[in-house]
Structures are given as C-alpha cells and as structure tokens.
C-alpha cells in the first residue's frame, strides 16, 4: 500500500486548520528532495536502476536530478571516493545551498569498503558530514530508496532554525567548511 503523507499536527476547527510553519516546510522539503548524484562507480549503476521504471525514485518527488549543486538538496555519494577525488567532493558539498543532506551509498563511500588502500579515502565522513549511510556493495535499489526515505524523515522533523544554530556551525567548522 502506498504510504501517503499525513497532515501535520495542528489546531483544527470549523473551516480552519493551523499548524506551525516548521512542519509544513519540513514536509515540503521531505517530498521534494532533488538529488545530486555523485556517482563514481558500481553504486552509480545501481542508482541508474533506482531511477529506472522498476524502482522509480520519482515516486518520492526525487526524479528531478540536479547536476548543479546550487539546486540540489541531497548529495548522494555513490561509489569509491579516492583521495584525488576528496577535494572535489568537498567543494561540491560546499557549493550546495542549505538545507543540504548527504547520503553515503555503499560500503566504499561509508568506510572505504574492501578498498583499504593507499589511494582510497576511508569513508567520506572524513571530509564532509553524512546524514545517512546505506550499506551494501553495492546496495540494492530498495536499500537506496530506504536511504532516501530516512533522509525524508530527517527533513520532515528538522527545525527551520537548525541550520543557523551554533551546534551546526560548530559541526561544519570541525570539517573545515566555511560558514557564512
């Protein structure tokens, strides 16, 4: 059965319905996550399958891929990130507009996977903050979709002010990411 978004909690009465802006915008964000596929290797092919007809990420309002980081809400890092690629990934993250979420899809992006070698970054969380990790080598499309749904949960319950909070800024600073 298709799970449809429930109305947010609010005050109901005759002819009116009041809820807080936070919740409405949270729901809007959750249902309109435009991914930036940072697909480097095997997981990228599974992502293509996820976008295909059988799995259809479009059901979640995420079929509009935005290759420009300015327009993306969700950075999906799929595949091995070599040390050579690290700075590039960081810059892409840097260029994204807030609010932004990151999924590390697959073992390589999460921890380096089987590639415990001199040239591979041992997990992208060494350079950028990650919200959801999807295990698998590569994960099945269902798993990728579940990762996106976890991000939806996060987005839904995030306060509008979180991105301005000191904790958030401190967290970014710990990754040496410039904050405004």
């Amino acid at each position: 059965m298709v799970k449809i978004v429930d109305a947010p909690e609010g005050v109901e009465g005759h002819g009116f319905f009041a809820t807080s802006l936070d919740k409405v915008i949270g729901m809007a964000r959750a249902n309109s996550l435009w991914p930036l596929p940072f697909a480097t290797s095997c997981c990228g092919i599974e992502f293509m399958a996820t976008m295909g007809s059988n799995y259809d990420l479009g059901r979640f309002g995420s079929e509009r891929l935005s290759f420009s980081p300015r327009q993306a809400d969700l950075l999906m890092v799929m595949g091995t990130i070599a040390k050579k690629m690290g700075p590039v990934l960081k810059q892409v993250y840097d260029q994204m507009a807030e609010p932004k979420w990151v999924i590390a899809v697959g073992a390589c992006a999460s921890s380096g996977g089987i590639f415990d070698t001199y040239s591979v970054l041992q997990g992208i969380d060494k350079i950028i903050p990650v919200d959801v990790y999807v295990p698998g080598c590569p994960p099945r499309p269902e798993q990728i979709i579940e990762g996106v749904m976890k991000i939806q949960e996060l987005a839904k319950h995030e306060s509008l002010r979180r991105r301005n909070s000191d904790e958030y800024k401190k967290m970014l600073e710990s990754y040496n990411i410039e904050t405004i």
Partner: protein
Amino acid sequence: MSVQEINNASVLEALAAEFGELIINSDEPYGFLTIEIPAEKNTAIIQWLMEHPTIKMNFLTDLCGVHFPDNKGKEIGVVYHLHSWTNNFRMRIKCFVAAATPEVPTLTTLFDAANWMERETFDFYGIQFVGHPDLRRILNMDEMDYHPLLKQYALEDETRDDKDDRFFGR
C-alpha cells in the same frame, strides 16, 4: 631472414639470427613465447618485430611493470605483450633494469597506445621512459612522493586510525 611458419621456435630462431646475444634468455611458459632482452635495445627489437614482413607484431596488447626486489641489479622489469594479428601469434618481451637507474626507452614512437601504459607504469614503479613525450603520474595524485606498487610500500591506507594492527601482524 624469412620465416615460413610462425611458431615459437621459428620466431625465436629469427630473433636469434638477427640479434644474437641480445636475446638474453627465452622461455615458453604455458606455450607463450617469452624472451628477455636488454632494456636499452627494446625499441629496436620491437620495431624489428613490428616491421618484419612475416612476423608483423602489429599490436601492443599490454605493457606493465614488475618488481623483484631480490633480483639484485635487475630489480625492476617492464613486460610487453605483443600480438601479431595476421598470424594470431602472441609473445611476451621482458627487460630488466636496476632500481637505482630505472631507465627504459619509450615505445611511444611505435605505438600510440604505449603513452598511457607507460605513464601508468611510471606512476606505479617509477620507471623513467626515456623519450616519453609527457611522463607524469596518471592515476595517483601529483603530490604523491613514492611509487606505490614497489614491494617495499604498504598497501594499506596509513591514515586510518580505527584499526588495531596488533591482531593482524601488520
């Protein structure tokens, strides 16, 4: 010298007749003709094989480096795989150099394909291909200060701090 039928013996014979002592040794592991030649003569010999009217080694299948640290004076080797499409004949050519002066003439003058293969070999083993038009690292970062496939370097990422090496003998 003309070669009537192309097989390991006849090619080896032709090579021996042309280059004599330059063919340091030869072998046929799993029926695959393998010869060893001095590094500084590789371009000449491969060109001869390529331009020979009947042998016609027209295709450079593969080029890679190899490291034998115990083989003093011949630590680093380059292995070429050649393929003659007209005769469907493959052969392997090896040349070894000392680790202190890893210099091998380039094959880019004969095969365009050798360009990146040599760059990769340089990247992995630090072999200097003399005459290569653009010998830079290709796969690793330019900042890297060693040649990672040499046997003395570790495979693992040195920056990792979440592993306890005591139990693995690392």
